[in-house]
């Protein structure tokens, strides 16, 4: 059982951490979330049948939503109206100056737009575009009909596109 758990941890830790990072927008909180999710996996490993990946995605997403709700209620209790900083996804993974020169503008706007995107669009886009999951896998992980997954992904992309067009000055109106 321990060996199986170790293998699952090695195979899935980056996936859990990445999803938590993009949902929470904070690396430290994402590390805590990853630890909590993996420990929950250890507690329930004997009860899980086959699709551990879908289970991990669902638990990570639910855990992160709980954290975000707590964060919001704490901010409300403190009367803090300030918007959160937009997470710099590339922090600590600097690919070098050439990369920055080529894409910095689009990436910056994209990351900002992703930070502002609501649910469920943000989750499904992260799972589809970052985790490269198939529609069926997303459907299982989020317990969402496959057509709803597709519609949400399309709407999410559309929202991002609209936002990027707005901030980057693309004129495509008919």
């Amino acid at each position, binding site marked *: *059982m*321990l060996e199986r*758990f*170790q293998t699952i*941890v*090695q195979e899935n*830790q*980056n*996936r*859990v*951490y*990445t999803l938590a*990072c*993009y949902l929470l927008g904070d*690396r430290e909180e994402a*590390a805590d979330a*990853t*630890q909590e999710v*993996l*420990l929950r996996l*250890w*507690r*329930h*490993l*004997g*009860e899980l049948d086959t699709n551990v990946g879908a289970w991990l995605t669902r638990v990570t997403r639910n855990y992160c939503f709980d954290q975000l709700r707590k964060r919001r209620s704490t901010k409300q209790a403190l009367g803090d109206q300030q918007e959160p900083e937009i997470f710099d*996804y*590339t922090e600590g*993974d600097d690919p070098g100056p050439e990369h920055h020169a080529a*894409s910095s503008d*689009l*990436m910056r706007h*994209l*990351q900002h737009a*992703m930070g502002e995107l609501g649910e469920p669009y943000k989750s499904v*886009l*992260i799972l589809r*575009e*970052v*985790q490269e999951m198939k529609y069926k896998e997303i459907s299982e992980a989020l317990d969402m009909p496959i057509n709803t997954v*597709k519609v949400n*992904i*399309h709407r999410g*992309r*559309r929202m*991002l*596109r609209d936002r*990027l*067009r707005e901030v980057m000055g*693309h*004129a*495509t*109106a*008919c």
Partner: protein
Amino acid sequence: MPRPAETTCPAVRDRLDPLLDGDLTRAEESRLHAHLEGCPACREELRLARDLRRALRDGLPTLECPPEVSARVLAIARDEVARGGAHCATDRTDTREPLADRLWTWLTGGGLGHLRPAATLAAVAALLLLLVAVPVALREVLFPGPGPTAPEVATGTTPEYTAEEIAQAEQQARLVLAAVAQVGRGAGRTVRDEVFEEALVQPARRVMESLQGGATETSGPHAAERQSEADGSGRRP
């Protein structure tokens, strides 16, 4: 002449993602391409959709989990397996955990694990009081009557408890004290003697005093001997 509804600009833009995903029928694809050839604005929209996909993949990479996260998780799992009280559901169905391990699991996991160490200590103190006070109080209710006087208890001339009761009480006390020690180790800290005295020993003594009218300590013929073993003084009566 008006264009068919499915080839108006808004309708085409709604179908750009399915087009890029390859989700459209051949006929739908043909209609969309026909529209795109004659509409620079929708072509620009298609280019933006492609750029966005590329940017999402390049700009939002898979991140690497800090190694200490998995190290911590695996250390916890190994520790639980080593203690024979694995939390993993399958392991638990194979063999029944010893009582002490189940108590430890409850104290540090589902039961009290979310508490801070100080709060955990207080909760354990409450548990200790409960374990000591409830049997004594029950005895008072079920078997009312004059208890032994202090001199009787001190000299051991009138045994207040049967040997079986004493053994049970000792077992309970050992269990709780072992749990207290494990709580301390689990929290990565030791409990100072004076804290232990204040949080556990003194409250327990007060309860015993109030229940037994001042005779607290030396119940049973071997009490003094046990006391000398417990505090390490080696004193003999």
